[in-house]
């Protein structure tokens, strides 16, 4: 009996000792612990263009203002100004807003050089940045001194000298622009990049052409006297792959064969001439293989092919009679985006570079084609067919971007032709810095080349001629 009582008390003791507070410490929670002071987080800002004072280049040469030198100064200025304008970061200060004539002062601030300029008048005019450039011409060599200043902080940000032949004037100026953008944003601009496209040479002939991103220095690189289309740059920018209709005397008909061109040596290689389609090539980053559409086995399907054309690995197979076309290899080489109508209508798909795991990333739209990866591998740009809401029987193509997982689709274009109808905007590709997208549009009446900022805000026409352009591709970065 006593032992039971004893046991009972022990049990009671143990159970009670678990109640909180028994010899434990009671503490009051400090009210300030929960919020630890006042705090707010601001996650939005109104980003605005910076006001840039960009006076004309100053001739600092000893030979004086010869007509040629003056002309060079103007060309240098025009190229630089166009580049900086297209970047979308700047708003240019008007030439009549200068309170101190920049042509009468030196390139450096007062206090650091004789006849230096003053920051105060620029601040008063509202400038935030100032670019002063001087050039001199000696024989055929151009030397350029570039200074970039922050007017707000009254200090120099960049000072650099450039030298090149007068024939490379545009390259020099583009390099200035790239350096300025790199200094301010941390990533280089795309101003030294190029565009490859197919354009008409005769009403029934198309050849491949390569030009500067701003449309200058346009040169034909193929001469099949036939129809050459779909140029593709290798990742190092040294090779171009394209397709052209080549005549087969034996069959007395033409076949769409694949060619590659070494841009440095100008040598052309006849790489794939399997019967049927050999087109829409896209290089892998290692430059040893490419993926393309081949229809020799019945359906247009995607194949991985060595660049000499010998080894062939099928990546897609239908299903059934579906077409799989327009492949584009991702920047890391691990995925391929392509267009396929296996679901009925052509939609954008992504698969692994070995052909497995194909998944649709667009489900909306009637005809989605020409997918291209962004340089950071996060987004895909493509052309999608859309119905005119006012007149559903009419459709037109617009450029869209979407995340690689299919989310956040954004339309970038919606222009109208002179006849009031919606224009077709097709065949998009990203600039090497991902800030712009190149595409073809018939909004002027004829297929011409245009670029648009990646957020869709500003469009700009690149070509102003009477040719018709098709399937342009923006080159990789050239430095």
């Amino acid at each position, binding site marked *: 009996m006593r032992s039971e009582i*004893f046991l009972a008390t022990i049990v009671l003791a143990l159970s009670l000792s678990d109640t*909180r*507070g028994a*010899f434990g410490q009671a503490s009051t929670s400090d009210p300030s612990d929960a919020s630890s002071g*006042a705090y*707010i987080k601001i996650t939005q*800002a*109104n980003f*605005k263009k910076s006001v840039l004072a960009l006076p004309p280049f100053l001739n600092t040469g000893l030979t004086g203002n010869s007509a040629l030198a003056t002309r060079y100064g103007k060309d240098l200025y025009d190229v630089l100004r166009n580049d900086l304008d297209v970047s979308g970061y700047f708003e240019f200060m008007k030439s009549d807003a200068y309170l101190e004539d920049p042509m009468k002062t030196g390139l450096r601030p007062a206090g650091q050089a004789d006849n230096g300029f003053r920051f105060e008048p620029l601040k008063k005019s509202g400038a935030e940045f100032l670019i002063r450039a001087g050039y001199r011409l000696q024989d055929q060599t151009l030397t350029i001194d570039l200074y970039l200043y922050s007017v707000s902080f009254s200090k120099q940000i960049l000072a650099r000298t450039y030298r090149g032949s007068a024939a490379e004037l545009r390259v020099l100026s583009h390099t200035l622009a790239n350096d300025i953008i790199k200094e301010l944003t941390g990533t280089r601009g795309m101003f030294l990049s190029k565009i490859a496209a197919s354009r008409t040479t005769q009403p029934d002939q198309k050849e491949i052409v390569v030009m500067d991103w701003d449309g200058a220095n346009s040169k034909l690189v193929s001469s099949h006297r036939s129809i050459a289309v779909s140029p593709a740059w290798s990742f190092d920018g040294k090779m171009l792959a394209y397709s052209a209709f080549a005549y087969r005397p034996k069959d007395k008909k033409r076949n769409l064969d694949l060619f590659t061109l070494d841009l440095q040596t100008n040598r052309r290689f006849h790489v794939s001439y399997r019967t049927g389609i050999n087109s829409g090539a896209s290089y892998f980053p290692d430059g040893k293989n490419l993926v393309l559409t081949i229809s020799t086995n019945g359906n247009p399907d995607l194949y991985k092919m060595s660049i000499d054309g010998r080894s062939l690995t099928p990546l897609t197979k239908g299903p059934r009679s579906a077409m799989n076309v327009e492949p584009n290899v991702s920047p890391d080489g691990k995925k391929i985006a392509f267009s396929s109508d296996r679901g009925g209508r052509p939609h954008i798909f992504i698969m692994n570079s070995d052909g497995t795991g194909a998944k649709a990333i667009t489900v909306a739209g009637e005809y989605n084609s020409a997918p291209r990866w962004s340089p*950071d591998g996060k987004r895909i740009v493509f052309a999608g067919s859309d119905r005119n809401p006012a007149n559903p029987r009419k459709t037109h193509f617009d450029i869209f971007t979407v995340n690689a997982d299919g989310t956040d689709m954004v339309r970038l274009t919606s222009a109208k032709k002179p006849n009031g109808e919606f224009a077709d905007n097709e065949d998009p590709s990203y600039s090497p810095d991902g800030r712009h997208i190149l595409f073809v549009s018939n909004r002027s009446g004829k297929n011409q080349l245009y670029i648009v900022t990646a957020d869709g805000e500003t469009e700009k026409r690149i070509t102003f001629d009477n040719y018709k352009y098709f399937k342009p591709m923006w080159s990789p970065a050239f430095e």
Partner: protein
Amino acid sequence: MTSLLDHDFRSALKWSVGAHAVLGLLLIFKGLFFPSEPLRIEDAIRVDLIALPDKNRSLPTPELSDATPNVAPVLPEAVSTPPPAPKQIATKDKPSPKTKKVDLAAKKKQTQAQSLKRLKALERLEAQARKEAAARALAQLKAQQLKGNQLSTGNALSGLTRLDQNEYLNSVEARIKQNWQPPKFLARSRLKLRVLVRISNTGTILSKNVLESSGNGVFDQSALLAIESADPLPPPPESLHLILENEGLEIELDPSANDNA
């Protein structure tokens, strides 16, 4: 018999004391070597006493918003009649009649103005006294009437105070956000910084310091400029006065927080 009971009693007592001692030792042992989690005494989230109002026979019908009970104001000793008019000099003997008349008229005006002033002052005093008395009565009423449609204001962490605080911080955030214009060339640079701002009771910014720079002077400067442009801010609610004036408000600026790209 007693010895038997005694014996039983004593052994029972021994057992009892022993058991109590063991219990005590166990608890002490437990408390020393296995302390349980400390008690957290937190402020209650919100406690409102809500009950239907009592019927009050003695108090007047409550008009809690605009109470002006019939309380006789305590007026200072005041003369309510204007002072007697100054002695009028007989118009018969006037060495210079015109000037004298003007003088008199001016004087009359003066004294009348003075008396008007005094009247006005009286009125003001009256009104003030009435107000004070009313406020006092109202306070009395309120103190007595805890029941009825009245919610307690809650404590520091809860209730209306908390709502006020959040509303104020939201307004500060909106003010600074709309003034913030960083340069477009930094839009994709994923920069962020933290600033500490001290705010006075009236909303003026007393100081701003960068706690953690973005690494980019232009970006930092644009944020500081935005805060300057938002100065003066609206006056903060009383519950935030101390903390905003002393510890300050920490502001984190991160415009790429919502980017998915």
